[in-house]
């Protein structure tokens, strides 16, 4: 286990290094100039030049990258060009909210997706199965912004069950998590359905029936843990897919997460923030995958950590 973790950590560091390099390179060749954004519209050529030199943006690419890396090693993610604040402070202030939203979002999509998938598998070929299939495609095809606004409008404005956006209490989390989770639930329900159909054909399910167990116990205790395995691996992948949705959901619900931070930074080429958010996200994805890999053997003892 320890050896496994060590190996994975080394791998993860290499992955993060790769991510940082690619991002830095992409931002370097991006046809937009951060200095122009800092200097503003009244700046003289002299001012622009000064700022460029001060930030070291006139240096060759590898020098810049090396400087960034050496800062990073010392825990320094740099300062935002436009906010003139430590990137680490900015991210630290917003990360908890994003993690909370992601966690809740994943729970939502699992809860909705898995139950839809299981029901569809049990009703395979019947009308309800087809209705659920259409529902899952609706979930996948619905634009997130519209879904978010619709949820907000119906459940917060019209019904008043939840606050209209904001952050703080448990009731604040519900709608954004739902908005974030709906798309994924479509995917999960399709995957869960096929995985469940496979499992229900297995011999041990017949054994469970022969033992005289109730149907619900057979489904929940015997079929589900087996069927959920391929889904677990997806959760790691999911975090990356979530990032796109976060920007939308966070802005509609006024959720103070890193999605909004990243969004504004991209608009204005605030490279240190983009780098910081990218690395933090990559970390989250790597950790998510690691967790998925660690959880898998807990569910299925046949899987060995290698």
């Amino acid at each position, binding site marked *: 286990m320890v050896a496994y973790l060590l190996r994975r950590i080394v791998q993860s560091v290499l992955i993060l290094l790769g991510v940082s390099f690619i991002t830095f390179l992409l931002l370097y060749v991006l*046809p*937009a*100039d*951060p200095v*122009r*954004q*800092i*200097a*503003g*519209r*009244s*700046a*003289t*050529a*002299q*001012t*622009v030049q*000064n*700022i460029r030199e*001060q930030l070291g943006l006139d240096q060759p690419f590898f020098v810049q990258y090396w400087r960034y890396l050496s800062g990073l090693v010392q825990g320094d993610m740099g*300062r*935002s060009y*436009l*906010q*003139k*604040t430590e990137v680490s*402070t*900015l991210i630290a*202030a*917003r990360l908890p*909210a994003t993690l909370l939203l992601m966690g809740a979002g994943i729970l939502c999509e699992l809860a909705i997706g898995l139950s839809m998938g299981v029901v569809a598998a049990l009703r395979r070929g019947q009308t309800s199965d087809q209705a659920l299939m259409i529902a899952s495609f609706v979930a996948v095809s619905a634009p997130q912004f519209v879904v978010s*606004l619709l949820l*907000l*409008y119906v459940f*917060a*404005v019209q019904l008043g069950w939840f606050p*209209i*956006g*904001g*952050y703080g209490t448990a009731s604040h989390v519900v709608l954004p998590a739902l908005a974030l989770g709906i798309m994924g639930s479509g995917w999960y329900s399709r995957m869960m359905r096929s995985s469940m159909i496979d499992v229900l054909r297995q011999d041990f399910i017949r054994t469970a029936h022969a033992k005289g167990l109730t149907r619900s116990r057979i489904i929940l205790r015997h079929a589900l843990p087996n069927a959920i395995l391929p889904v677990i691996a997806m959760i790691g992948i999911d975090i990356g897919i979530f990032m796109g949705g976060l920007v939308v959901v*966070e*802005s*509609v*619900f*006024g*959720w*103070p*997460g890193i999605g*909004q*931070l990243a969004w*504004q930074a*991209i*608009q*204005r*080429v605030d490279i240190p923030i983009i780098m910081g958010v990218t690395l933090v996200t990559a970390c989250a994805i790597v950790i998510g995958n690691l967790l998925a890999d660690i959880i898998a053997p807990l569910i299925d003892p046949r899987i060995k950590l290698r």
Partner: protein
Amino acid sequence: EDYQPDPNAKPGGGIVITYKDDVATLDPAIGYDWQNWSMIKSIFDGLMDYDPGTTDLRPGLAESYTVSDDGMTFTFKLRGGVTFHNGREMTADDVKFSLDRVTNPATQSPGAGFFGSIKGYDAMADGSADNLEGVKVVDDGTIEITLSRPDATFLHVMALNFASVVAREAVEAAGDDFGKQPVGTGAYKLGEWTLGQRLVFEKNADYWRDGVPYLDSITFEVGQEPVVALLRLQNGEVDVPGDGIPPAKFREVMSDPAQAERVVEGGQLHTGYITLNVNTPPMDDARVRQAINMAINKDRIVQIINGRAVPATQPLPPSMPGYTDGYAGYGFDPEGAKALLAEAGQGDGFATELYVMNTDPNPRIAQAIQRDLADIGIDAAIKSLAQANVIEAGGNGSAPMIWSGGMAWIADFPDPSNFYGPILGCDGAVDGGWNWSWYCNADLDAMATKADAITDAAKQDERMQMWSDVYMGVMEDAPWVPVFNEQRYTMKSARMGGADALYVDPVSIPINYDYVYVTE
């Protein structure tokens, strides 16, 4: 003191204002976003100020000032007994420190260029001096500023946020984080700042202007989608949607009398225009540019944005001094445009590109422009890009046409000169500049310089006439298509009090925090 505050105003209470974008900084030397501009104005004061809701200058931290006869030396007498939020009294040293700081390249202030007329600015800019030679502390209560050239706009410059007076010890203590821990002399002080969520301003009880501010606190909630902010306003949770009424909700609001009643409309010092790159053939021919001017159906564009603007005829907005009354501009005349194109040898039309920033409604406006151009045979491909990319393309001269929406010019101060230098003058027509037309007319430049050298208050009419002539000259060469002057539409909750003008304050967008109040 000409300005008479609202006699009905009651002190007390708090309001909630929302913004979509996070507040980047409250450092007056750095902040140049439209939402932190007015916030900084309420936390800091400069030597000069404006009457609320107007563009009329009034003294700020300076009790009075005198100008030398040549207009080159300004002596400001500071108000006594003004204290910073930290309790220390403000002195002339602070004024000098603040001006030195904003012009110091290490500060990376986007507003440093405004101080170009102060003596010693160039030495500051190239790093050879560490303070402005022209700014002298005479005594604790007096500061004398010497210019290197006459500058009629100088008092306006001193009213800019960039000229705000900051507390030296607070700057030194906070270092780079001053923007998050601002200390000024303003009507409000920063109470709480939860990054990414909210800022709370608290009333500065020791504010040197009597009676104001009225509000005990202002809460700015950031990261709020405009559509949602409006829903919250309708629900009574928000008092002012900082980003205004979103286009998608505009008609809904206006068609409901109860809501329409709380909408405030006002002009702003804004012009939306298309830049035509004079270096890009065939637009290097003035006739082609004039033809393009005649091809654009401005009324239709105004209709597309639900009538929230008035068609423009010239670069200056109507409320700006120096605006040429009675000038009709290029009327909508596709046939005339075609004829002119033919005359310029472009009868078959040509293909070009129209850059536009990618936020609603700009791509829509660009498509309307595209169609109008198509009618006279010009095939303009739209490049709808992120703001930074459009700015890059404009600054390096690769964009033949740019619809300026979203990045259009809003004056920093109410003076016609502010609409010229960076965006139409030769200074701006450099790599990385903001003169995206790359228009450079030496004669007009000379006339502009001459106009700005007229510092005599008695000769202001003459100066304005000269500026009017400059802009008429620009229209002749037609490097721009002025399309419309956007009107500000904002909304307030029922409990908000204060004159409408305070809600469309031309210098304190979205509202003048110091003078509004709540009625309950």
